């Protein structure tokens, strides 16, 4: 479609039109500036996150070692428990209860 020039009926109409167009152009300009600013901030953030990822991966910045204390406790507890369990059974298996009772009764009587 061909752009036609607007014909104004009076000076006021022309003046107001130019004021409106100026505001619209400023608005468009600020929109462009805003979107380019957002784009540059986003790319800066992406770049920094990439740099930090690389630093952590290569060990330039050492990562914090987090100990899993729950797991260790569980293992320790498990070991302790099984040791005590084994001890208990070994005691019951090796000891001769009849002798104990026999001694007890023999001593008492």
């Amino acid at each position, binding site marked *: *479609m061909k752009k*036609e020039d*607007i014909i104004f009926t*009076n000076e*006021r*109409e022309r003046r*107001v*039109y130019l004021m*409106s167009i100026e505001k619209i152009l400023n608005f468009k300009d600020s929109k462009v500036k805003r979107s380019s600013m957002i784009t540059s901030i986003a790319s800066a953030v992406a770049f920094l996150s990439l740099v930090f990822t690389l630093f952590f991966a290569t060990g330039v910045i050492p990562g914090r070692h987090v100990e899993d204390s729950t797991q260790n406790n569980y293992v320790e507890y498990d070991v302790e428990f099984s040791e005590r369990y084994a001890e208990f059974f070994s005691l019951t298996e090796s000891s001769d209860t009849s002798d104990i009772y026999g001694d007890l009764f023999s001593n008492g009587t």
Partner: protein
Amino acid sequence: MEEQEAVTLIKKGNMMGFDHIYKEYSGRIYGYLIRMVGEPSEAEDLTSEVFFRFYKGIGKYKDRGMLSSFIYRIAHNAAMDYFRKSKGIILSYDDNIQSSKEEKEESPYSEEEKMMLKAGMSRLSAKDRELLIMFYISGLSIKEIAGSLGKSVTAVKVSLKRARDRLKMEVPA
């Protein structure tokens, strides 16, 4: 060019559509605003603001709605913003707008009657004056006024009747 076609062009970023709407409504919007604020330079600023806000908000305009209501709603909001900024000071009603030769010839009122009407309008509240301007001067329908003020048709009818009654009281018979 149809209004709808012009709106579609604006939405696509074509300023030809904007030019068409401007030509169609600028005179009426300026007429409404100068009667509301009374100061030609303020009315010009506000008119340009209305068309800027119209351009900015065209995305919100639904195709099935009335464009006149949409533009007058923006103009109403611009006028209310102006009154708020000027701390509620409402300037006197001014009807010294350059009317066309035909309008002058067709006017059934004498200069004295016009002066009395003008004085009566100045004494009305901004809300009453706005309704009377929209209906009698801008030539909007009740439905269009309702759309632009965000009121129901019945509410506009009632308010318009009250505004007319108050003007009658202000203008001696």
